[in-house]
């Protein structure tokens, strides 16, 4: 459904994912153009998380191929259900660890910048286990943004965030979208974050049921998803 001629940031081609005899995804084909902000919606168990994890390269599909930015495995930013950071390390140590693994240049400055942006600079030396769920989620988002990924995958990123933090996340995502970053995220219900979407895809029982770029459709899909 991406604009004709636009380069695809990620392409799913007839993706199947089976767990035993149960299909989590069935013949999913999607093409997401660079710079798009796509919201995945659908009821629990519709396959949103599986699709995002396949997109990140964390889960292997049973059939079909995923191509990212022309190559199979370009670096992505990923925010999952879990925080994906260490409770036994401080916020700063966590970000420095992943920054160094990712080979981020001038990592200390980048980490300090992200800690400032997330409003956690004052608590940078505190262990994450002393943080609230919302604060940990902000560290999780900061971790995903460390290497300035061109493709950002977020699985219900507003989980545990208060309204101020949701606004912060929406602003951050808007800046990323405006700078050309491709965003694929799953959401339940309408929020400041869903307002950023340029396209919505609804999954039902592992298959794409609707795919639209219309704002009205997006609203209907999210309302439908939240009601379910």
């Amino acid at each position, binding site marked *: 459904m991406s604009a004709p001629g636009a380069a695809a940031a990620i392409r799913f081609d007839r993706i199947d994912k089976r767990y035993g005899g149960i299909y989590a995804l069935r013949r999913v084909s999607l093409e997401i153009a660079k710079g798009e902000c796509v919201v995945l919606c659908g009821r629990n168990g519709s396959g949103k998380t599986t699709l995002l994890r396949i997109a990140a390269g*964390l889960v292997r599909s049973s059939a079909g191929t995923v191509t990212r930015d022309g190559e199979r495995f370009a670096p*992505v930013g*990923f925010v999952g259900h879990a925080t994906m950071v260490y409770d036994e*390390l401080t916020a700063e*140590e966590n970000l420095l660890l992943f920054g*160094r*693994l*990712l080979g981020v240049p001038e990592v200390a400055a980048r980490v300090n910048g992200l800690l400032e942006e997330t409003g956690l600079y004052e608590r940078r030396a505190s262990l994450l286990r002393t943080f609230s769920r919302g604060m940990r989620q902000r560290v999780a988002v900061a971790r995903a943004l460390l290497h300035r990924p061109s493709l950002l995958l977020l699985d219900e990123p507003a989980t545990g965030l208060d309204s101020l933090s949701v606004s912060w996340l929406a602003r951050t995502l808007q800046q990323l979208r405006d700078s050309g970053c491709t965003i694929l995220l799953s959401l339940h219900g309408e929020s400041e974050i869903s307002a950023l979407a340029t396209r919505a895809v609804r999954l039902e029982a592992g298959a794409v049921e609707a795919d639209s770029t219309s704002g009205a459709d997006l609203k209907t899909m999210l309302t439908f998803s939240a009601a379910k």
Partner: protein
Amino acid sequence: MSVLSNAAVLLGKELRTEFRSRELLTTTIVFVVMVIILFSFTFNSFSEDSRRFAPGLLWLSFLFAASLMLQPCFLREQSNDTLSALRLSVSDAFAIFLAKLAANTLFLLITEILLLPIFAALYNVQVVPVLHWLLLVFVLGSLGVSLAGTALSAISAQARMRELLLPLLLLPLLTPVLVASAEVTVGLLDRNPYMQWKGVGFLALFDVVFLTALWLFGEYLLEE
């Protein structure tokens, strides 16, 4: 980032978290000292039995230590799904294994070195004259135990009944390492110490084979 530099960064994290909490080392050392003390009551330490049985008991204690240490190795990466974050961040999944392997071997060696004087005193064996050879066996044996254990820890962490699975798989797989390590240690603790190079060669070969297997197939062990 190369595999080695990724592994070095991750090893730093492993050491930092362990030395900050000291959960694993303290528990294991206390447990293994208790085992060694209990075994020492079963025979007269001044008898010839002590020399014959002590090396086997020593390596059995190390096996218990390894079972305790290796279980949380990948399990603790599950709670916050940090393993996924690591897989997305490293250039090669082998770096994760290298770091875990280095940390496990180091923790096991620390336990063994701390245990050695207690073992020597309780079992009335001379370790000082053959200390350098004992250390060689400890390094090769511990590396073998850690190699198999780290791989199995990655497999069992994603399985059901994970707490039972690791010891169940670890014991049969490590039997050759334990036999070779115990045999070499028997020679070293003899009244006239001698080195069983065949045993040392076997340990080195086991380490090389498992390290190569981990390098080739490690990535598949981490897949969901």
